[in-house]
C-alpha cells in the first residue's frame, strides 16, 4: 500500500472511500433491522394470541423509567447529530463535548435500565429465574417478559457498543480532526441514531399497551 496516500489502494480518492463507508453502514443497519425484526415478529404473534395478558404485563413495566429513558436517548441522538454538524463546521472541541454529553446520557440510560431490571427482579417478573404473576394471565405475561428481556438486553448491548465507539472517536478527535475521522464519526452517528430509533419502537410496544385499561 502506498504510504502517505491516506486511503486504501482500491479507492480512487478520499471521497470515494467515504461513499463506500456510507453505503456499508446502511447495509449493516438493514441487517440490524432484520435482527430486531425477528423479535418483533415473535412479539406480534404472541400479542395476537394473548392480548389481555400482554396488556396486563405491560402495565407492570415501569413507564416512568421507560419514558425518561426515551427522552434521554432522543436527546443523546440530538447531541450526536449536533456533534457531526459541529465537526463539519470545524468546531472540534465543541464536537468532543457534545460526544461526551451523548455518552453520559447513554450511560445514564444503561444505569436506569439496570435499576428497572432490579425492580423487575424484586417484583418476580424475570422468567427462568423467578417469575410469578397473578393468574389467569401468567402464561401470556411470561411470554411478554421473556421477549421484553431478550429485546431490551440486545438493545442494551447495542448501546454499549455505541458508547464504546463514541468514546474511541472522542479520544482520537483530541489530536486531529482528519477527514477520515469525520467520515468515521458520521458512520458512528448513523449507528447511534438507528439504536435510538429501535428503542422508540420497543418503547411503544413494551411500555404503552394496556395503559388505558384497568
Amino acid at each position, binding site marked *: 500500500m502506498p504510504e502517505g496516500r491516506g486511503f486504501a489502494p482500491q479507492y480512487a480518492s478520499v471521497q470515494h472511500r467515504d461513499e463506500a463507508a*456510507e*453505503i456499508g453502514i*446502511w*447495509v449493516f*443497519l*438493514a*441487517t*440490524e*433491522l*432484520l435482527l430486531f*425484526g*425477528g423479535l*418483533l*415478529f415473535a412479539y*406480534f*404473534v404472541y400479542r*395476537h*394470541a394473548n392480548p389481555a395478558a400482554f396488556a396486563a404485563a405491560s402495565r407492570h413495566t415501569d*413507564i416512568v423509567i421507560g*419514558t425518561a429513558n*426515551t*427522552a434521554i436517548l*432522543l*436527546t443523546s*441522538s*440530538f447531541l*450526536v*447529530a*449536533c456533534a457531526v*454538524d*459541529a465537526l463539519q*463546521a*470545524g*468546531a*472540534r*472541541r*465543541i464536537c468532543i463535548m457534545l460526544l461526551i454529553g451523548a455518552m453520559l446520557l447513554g450511560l445514564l440510560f444503561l444505569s436506569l435500565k439496570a435499576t428497572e431490571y432490579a425492580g423487575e427482579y424484586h417484583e418476580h417478573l424475570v422468567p427462568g429465574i423467578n417469575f410469578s404473576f397473578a393468574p389467569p394471565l401468567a402464561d401470556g405475561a411470561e411470554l411478554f417478559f421473556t421477549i421484553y428481556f431478550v429485546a431490551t438486553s440486545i438493545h442494551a448491548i447495542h448501546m454499549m457498543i455505541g458508547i464504546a465507539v463514541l468514546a474511541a472517536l472522542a479520544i482520537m478527535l483530541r489530536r486531529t480532526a482528519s477527514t477520515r475521522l469525520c467520515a468515521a464519526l458520521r458512520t458512528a*452517528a*448513523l449507528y447511534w*441514531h*438507528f439504536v*435510538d*430509533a429501535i428503542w*422508540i*419502537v420497543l*418503547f*411503544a*410496544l413494551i411500555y*404503552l*399497551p394496556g*395503559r*388505558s*385499561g384497568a
Partner: protein
Amino acid sequence: MMGWRPPLVLVASWLGLLALLALTVTLAYLPFGSLNSTVAIVIAAIKAAIIAAFFMELWDRGPRLLIFAGAGLFWLGLLLWLGLMDFITRAPA
C-alpha cells in the same frame, strides 16, 4: 471556534420528538380501546421517520441510500406480513 450554533433543523426535530413522546404517553392513558396500540405504533413510526430524515440526514441523500434504508423495512414487512398471516388465519383447533 465557539461560533458554532446547533442547526435549526436539528433543534426543531429534537423538540418535535420530545413533544411526540409526551403525546404518545398521554394518549396511551386515554381509553380508545384497540385504537390505542395503533396510535402508539403510528407515533413511533413518525418518530423513527424524523430520526431517519433529519438526524440520519436521509432527506437530502440520493435514491441509492433511500433504497438501502427502505430495503430493510421492506423485508421486515415481508416477514411480518406473511408470518402473521398464518397465525391470524388459523382455524381454531
